[in-house]
């Protein structure tokens, strides 16, 4: 085996192979930067080039691209709050907060270094896991995979910032959205209301970029100047590396979880990154900073997110079951060379397997290194006001979302989800569980259904894997209950924690700014109505198809009901307090009056800021709708040419010269893009 490993390494010294690898790495990095294209885009652009090549250079190129796509897709998530994939949304939690505190450079260097280590460990893991993969995959039946999906959604709901009820409600809303489309078990259409477009389900990229990306544009476009003070990092790269090294245990743990999760077909990639985040939070002594820019929240998931790619190659090659579109295309490429995936690949094509391992390792290092070198200039992006970035970002994100299905409807869905994301964000509902719920809804239903119909009664519950996952799920809840009980016997720790939290939250003006207002009550009530509606509609499905929607809707009704009750109670309490003040003030009770006069102006300023945010959001979403109408009429390029100068002149108030140059550059990029990347521009009626 070692002989094959070294001969594969020696063959990589061949300059032509190295060039192919470099081409792949560069293409992967560039495509990863554009939110929404991701690995699929990278492989799709490179695949046609590989026809007619020998398998070795072709593989080197494709693996090079796959290994680094998740390195550079961090950039949009961290700097712009626009994750193009479900796994990038995890890095976003802490990375974006850190960037908003002016530490974009620090966040990026931590992420890139972790990606590199994750890729390297992933490559090593790939080698070691080959003999273990078969028993591992075979020991994971439908019940275990079902528990894994539950674990993924619950971890996201519990660990995201905000209270658990809000997290659960968001996760269940995501699950409900994920159920739109054709049922995996009976092939009947659910919640599609007769539309063939909806019967396909909603596109992941549209959800990720809508709920996060567009909501971010809408909430920040009002700012015409940058308000964050960039924090100067002294010591440059050296200090970045030094800080990263202090978190080395998290890097290794994240990478190991990533490999393990990537090996499991179907659910691994998404759940894996969350498991990595979950273990980082669970094992940390001081959890207060998570979600607000904790380096450990970046390091673990980011390292997992690259090693998942390596782990994913194991089921792809050994069982012919790809974990995603990119690995499916890789599989197709191997097939055209007459290389059949299957257990025999390890004996028949060992040299190729090692070539893949080495190419993966080299590409991870090279890709992360290139990104690391560029952090300084990338971080400068945060100095450009969002109002100016807005139209360009909008055009790029919508184009990215269009690529998945080639449907204009996806873009409308994306804008609608942007509005939803805006309100979720403003009312302090975590959006990450929403996205994870959306991604895992169908696998969860599939594996639940298979478990229920392939196992007798509840015998599956006693399987060791299921019990282990259940323990993972329940243990943290019990632990926190125990801690709370102990603390209840008189400790000030809790109050201390709250103080910290509220001080930090001011970093983001919109996040949670509408909490405890009629708006947040409205969101809770809307959630109740949605779940109730879903419950009602699901009554018309066949027995098998209505099981999951019903469970989700009932769970959602409970969670959203509790949330509504919390909101009402909070409002009552607030109203009662306000009433007290009103009564107290005339009486001249000194303390209360002091408090009242001090509080009122602050409330006014906050209410004003809130109204301003809402106005800006409404206007921005209206502008997006206008843009889509323009696209429908005149096509993408024409719409961009009209929309961009309009937005820049009136909304961003840039100089006319800037607007003209900006628009011309954007137009030229759009014109050139289809011939450079596998990108289609939406066509209008006039075209």
């Amino acid at each position: 085996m070692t002989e094959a490993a070294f001969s594969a390494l020696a063959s990589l010294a061949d300059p032509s192979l190295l060039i192919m690898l470099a081409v792949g790495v560069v293409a992967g990095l560039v495509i990863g930067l554009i939110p929404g294209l991701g690995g699929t885009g990278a492989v799709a652009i490179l695949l046609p080039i590989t026809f007619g090549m020998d398998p070795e250079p072709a593989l080197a190129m494709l693996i090079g691209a796959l290994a680094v796509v998740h390195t550079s897709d961090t950039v949009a998530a961290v700097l712009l709050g626009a994750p193009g994939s479900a796994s990038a949304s995890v890095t976003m939690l802490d990375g974006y907060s850190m960037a908003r505190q002016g530490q974009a450079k620090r966040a990026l260097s931590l992420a890139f270094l972790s990606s590199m280590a994750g890729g390297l460990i992933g490559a090593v893991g790939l080698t070691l896991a080959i003999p273990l993969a078969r028993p591992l995959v075979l020991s994971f039946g439908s019940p275990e995979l079902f528990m894994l999906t539950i674990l993924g959604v619950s971890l996201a709901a519990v660990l995201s910032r905000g209270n658990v009820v809000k997290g659960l409600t968001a996760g269940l809303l995501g699950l409900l959205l994920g159920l739109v489309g054709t049922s995996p078990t009976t092939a009947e259409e659910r919640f599609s209301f007769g539309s063939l477009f909806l019967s396909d389900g909603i596109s992941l990229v549209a959800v990720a970029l809508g709920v996060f990306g567009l909501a971010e544009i809408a909430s920040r476009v009002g700012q015409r100047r940058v308000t964050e003070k960039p924090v100067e990092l002294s010591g440059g790269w050296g200090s970045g590396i030094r800080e990263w090294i202090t978190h080395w245990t998290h890097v290794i743990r994240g990478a190991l979880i990533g490999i393990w999760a990537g090996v499991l077909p179907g659910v691994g990639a998404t759940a894996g990154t969350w498991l990595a985040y979950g273990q980082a939070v669970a094992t940390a002594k001081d959890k207060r900073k998570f979600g607000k820019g904790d380096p450990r929240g970046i390091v673990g998931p980011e390292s997992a997110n690259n090693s998942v790619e390596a782990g994913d190659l194991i089921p792809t090659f050994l069982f012919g079951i790809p974990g995603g579109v990119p690995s499916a295309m890789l599989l197709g490429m191997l097939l055209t060379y007459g290389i059949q995936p299957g257990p025999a690949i390890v004996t028949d094509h060992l040299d190729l397997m090692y070539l893949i391992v080495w190419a993966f390792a080299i590409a991870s290092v090279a890709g992360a290194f290139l990104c690391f070198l560029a952090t300084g200039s990338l971080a400068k992006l945060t100095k450009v006001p969002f109002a100016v970035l807005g139209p360009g970002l909008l055009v790029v994100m919508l184009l990215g979302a269009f690529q998945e299905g080639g449907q204009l409807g996806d873009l409308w869905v994306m804008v609608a989800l942007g509005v939803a994301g805006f309100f979720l964000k403003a009312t302090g509902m975590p959006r990450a569980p929403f996205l994870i719920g959306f991604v895992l809804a169908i696998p969860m239903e599939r594996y639940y259904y298979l478990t229920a119909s392939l196992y007798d009664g509840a015998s599956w519950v006693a399987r060791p894997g299921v019990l282990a996952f259940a323990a993972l799920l329940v243990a943290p809840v019990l632990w926190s209950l125990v801690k709370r009980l102990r603390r209840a016997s008189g400790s000030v720790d809790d109050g201390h924690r709250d103080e910290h939290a509220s001080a930090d939250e001011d970093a983001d003006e919109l996040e949670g700014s509408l909490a405890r207002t009629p708006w947040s009550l409205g969101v809770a009530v809307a959630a109740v109505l949605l779940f109730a509606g879903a419950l009602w509609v699901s009554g018309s499905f066949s027995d098998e198809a209505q099981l999951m929607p019903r469970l989700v809707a009932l769970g959602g009704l409970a969670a959203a009901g509790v949330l509504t009750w919390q909101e009402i109670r909070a409002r009552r309490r607030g109203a009662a307090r306000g009433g007290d003040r009103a009564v107290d003030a005339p009486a001249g009770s000194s303390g209360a009056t002091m408090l009242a006069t001090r509080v009122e102006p602050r409330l006014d300023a906050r209410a004003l800021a809130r109204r301003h945010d809402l106005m800006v959001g409404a206007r921005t979403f209206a502008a997006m709708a206008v843009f889509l109408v323009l696209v429908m009429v005149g096509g993408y390029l024409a719409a961009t040419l009209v929309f961009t100068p309009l937005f820049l002149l009136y909304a961003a108030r840039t100089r006319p010269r800037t607007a003209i140059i900006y628009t011309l550059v954007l137009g030229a990029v759009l014109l050139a893009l289809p011939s450079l990347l596998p990108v289609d521009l939406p066509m209008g009626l006039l075209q």
Partner: protein
Amino acid sequence: MTQHVEEEDVATTADEDAGSAQDPPERPAPTPRLAGAVLAGFTALAVGVSVLGGDFLNPAASTADGDYSGETVEMMIPLAEGGGTDTWARFVGAELTEAVPGSPGLAPVNDDGGEGILGTNHFMTSAKTDGTEVLVSTASTVVPYLLDMPSVRYDFNKLRPILANGTGAVVYARTGAGVRGVEDLVNRDKPLIFGGIAATSLDLTTMLAFDLLSADIDATFGFEGRGPVNLALQRGEVDIDYQTTSSYEPAVEPLVKDGTAVPLFSLGQVDEDGEIVRDPNFPDLPTVVEVYEKLHGEQPDAEALETYRAILALTYTYQKALWVPEETPDEAVELLRSTADEMGADPAFQKSAAEVLGGYPLDASPDLAERIGEAYRVDESVREDVLELLETDYDITID
């Protein structure tokens, strides 16, 4: 531009906590005249781009002259990147366009809406009829067409085939479930559990085979693909499964060798005379018809056999095909077809394409249109049989 913005920001970044409510004085809105001029300029450009640009960049194709030079063939693949059909289409498409006189470019377009239905509908209504747009068909678009699902707005009788390529499949079972041979398919105490994706997918043909044999099968649908079913069989979650020819060797053969699984029969192939014959890739495995004779000692019911034969031809023997719109000029269709025919006969192509074609020839002979047309003209009685099976056995109604 970025440079300019930065300078300004460094200068004006003030320590403000109250947010945008109290912005420092900002640049006033541009004068209406200036803004109007800028907008008018871009609008004119936009109109120019959208109206003129299209014609300017895409001149009309000339493909009826026996030469495709300078053209680009757009290939509509109505499924996602990376699947078996996508791989097949990209490979065959690339080889074909290279062989066509003038070596046109190839632009594969993946439109995976509605499991292939949306893309095919779209092709039907908007494809150019000059021979530069080609459609890929496969089981996922053929079965809904066969079942006449309401969302299907395409008609293969209104398209012209260029080439076709078939595949086959083998049904195998887990020895751990007490299956030693085909005799164990019937008269069982406990039905065999079959793992499937959906009854309205390629699984349909296998379901028809089980129905024909009156095998004791309990089908559970909902799997993600055939690979996961194969794994579930190895775990013992399901008892019986089928794999198509290309995945049989890597996925099933090792199991047969170590005794965990036993191959039972092949679905067979429909030959040029319309008879069900043994699969050339599995000459040692009996067909469904032979198994029936062995189990029941007589020929299967003629009507049921006809239904099975029609569906087998449609979903396996002519499973994948390339099509052009009906109005495409004869010269262009003939040029593409004859090129494909020569290519299919070329030993070098046969060798490089062996894996992708799955051991079945690339069929582009002159009578292809006739044979494929016959296979795709599904009798109403066949359709009714299938719909009845779906409704009675699997509780699926198609309206």
